[in-house]
């Protein structure tokens, strides 16, 4: 089935309820997939469930019904230990607030997920991390403390960290939401290049119409459903 192989991420009939503070059906029958090398964006009003969906897809949120596949393998129902290994190897994350570890240097931040994975030697990992920083044009920041660099730089470091283990998909929760237009454009161009040069799949939640329109596909959500 060559067609099926192309699905990097696929969700089948995903439903999610918030029990607190009141019963609320937040995701309703979500069926969709991301293809290999596809740059998809999710749009929708605040509270429509788009971030919730992203966290379900990210494997961090396990409180849902339905099935989730990554690389055509069922992820739903796996134990937490296994899920964290999957997040470590297969999924890269970029958040709205940069979430670097402030006590560590930029280089150490980028290296951490690879050191956790433990597939390569320290020197190889350091080399890889410097390469990633170089492709994002921030290699000069490598030895600075993460707390000492600007917001735009932090977001690029976060992207480098997300890429260190060569994931199959990069997810972003409004990665440009907190950046000025110059830095936002910069981040968009980086995503674009990753898709085109490295064939990476991207799934980005955004509020930015301009950003979304330049992606391959816009998934629009409303009241917990994906609009056709």
């Amino acid at each position, binding site marked *: 089935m060559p067609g099926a192989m192309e699905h990097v991420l696929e969700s089948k009939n995903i439903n999610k309820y918030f029990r607190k503070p009141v019963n609320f059906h937040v995701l309703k029958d979500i069926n969709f997939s991301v293809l290999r090398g596809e740059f998809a964006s999710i749009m929708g009003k605040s509270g429509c469930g788009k*971030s919730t969906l992203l*966290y379900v897809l*990210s494997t*961090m*949120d396990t409180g849902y019904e339905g099935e989730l596949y990554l690389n055509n393998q069922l992820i739903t129902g796996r134990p*937490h*230990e296994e899920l*964290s*290994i999957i*997040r*470590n*190897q297969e999924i890269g*994350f970029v*958040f*709205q*607030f940069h*979430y*670097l*570890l*402030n*006590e*560590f240097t930029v280089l*150490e931040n980028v290296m*951490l*997920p690879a*050191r*956790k*994975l*433990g597939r390569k030697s320290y020197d190889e990992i350091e080399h890889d991390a410097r390469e990633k920083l170089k492709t994002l044009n921030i290699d000069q920041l490598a030895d600075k403390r993460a707390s000492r660099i600007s917001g735009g730089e932090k977001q690029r470091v976060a992207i480098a*960290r*997300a890429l260190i*283990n060569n994931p199959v998909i990069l997810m972003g*929760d409004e990665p440009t939401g907190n950046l000025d237009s110059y830095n936002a454009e910069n981040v968009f161009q980086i995503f674009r290049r990753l898709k085109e040069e490295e064939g990476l799949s991207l799934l980005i939640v955004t509020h930015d119409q301009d950003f979304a329109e330049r992606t391959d596909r816009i998934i629009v959500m409303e009241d917990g459903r994906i609009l056709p």
Partner: protein
Amino acid sequence: MTNWNVILFIARTHLLTKLKSTITASLGVTFGIGAYITLVSFMTGLNQMLDDLVLNQTPHIHLYNEIKPSVSQPISRYREFEDALNVVYSIKPKESQEKIHNALPVLHYLNEDERVLGATPQLNARIFYLSGSIELGGNLAGVDVLEEARLYNLDDYVVEGSTQALKNTENGILLGAGLAKKMSLKPGDRVQISTVQGAITPLKIVGIYQSGIAEIDNSRSIANLKTVQRILGEAENYITDINLKLVDIADAVPMAAQLEKQFSVEATDIIEANAQFETGSNIRNIITYAVSITLLIVAGFGIYNILSMLIYEKMNDIAILKATGFSGRDVHYIFMSQALIIGFLGGLLGLFIGFVLSHVIDRIPFETQALPTITTFPVNYNIGYYFIGIIFAFISTFIAGYLPAKKAEKIDPVRIIRGN
């Protein structure tokens, strides 16, 4: 699959960037362990000294003949008066000899026994010390000097002169310190003693004996066994007491019972004679441990607080670690290793401080009449207490770190990330 390199790297970075909290938490452990080591070294040193004080001087088993009335009076054996109420007025002690029957063969037999470290003969004689027209009552112990020195550290209690001098001087006497003071005598002088029968013998003072117990020092002196036998005009087999030192003190009770039957003498064991002694040691130990554990519990609360604060501050970091593939268990290990590193460093420093403090105590002069050989406070440098100390440090920090680390493990990254 736990990658300890990374976990320890993160733990170390957290500790180093929060150096002040780390030091505060470590110092808590340091004080707990330091106090434990100091207290336990001093207390057990004291216990040991007091134990030695008794054990060194006291035979494990003491054999002697007691002067006492017969258990059953002849009339109670007489059948005809069996049902009558017999009353005997002014019963006298049974007429028997003070010496131990067959003392020399018994002594020889005991010295052959492999449970016995040494059996020594002793002859206790009631005498008077004559000083001009004054007669001081007291007693004179005739002993085998070299054996006494070997088994009961007699040398430690001879404050002037020596046991060797007594051995070499036939008419020598080690005079009790209190007696020497009363009669203004010093080594080299002569003292006249009189037996109960009235025979007067001059003896040469070769040393002063001080047991530390005033009552004894005011009445008791030591001389060679043969000298005392001669003073009393008795034969060489005239021995009133046999003292035994055993290889293992635990044998004392059963062996005393056995010897009592075997030789029909009175046998007192050391445990019977010093029953109150164990109690004192035990109470001092309990106090030591109670104080140390209290200090460690206080230190534990400090660590608990600091780690809880740290985890509260590091909520975002924990979320991001989890999002990038660290499992809950990894996060748990990160914070547990911080707690244990604090425990290890604080504990190690505590051991060092404890060692230094006990060394200081060891140097403090402590001179007492009761213990002529002791010049400073006694301290016990048993390596075992240092092991217990570091294990204490680990246990208390483990318990203190466990709950905060468990909390960090349970943090839901989605809630933190979305909360912003």
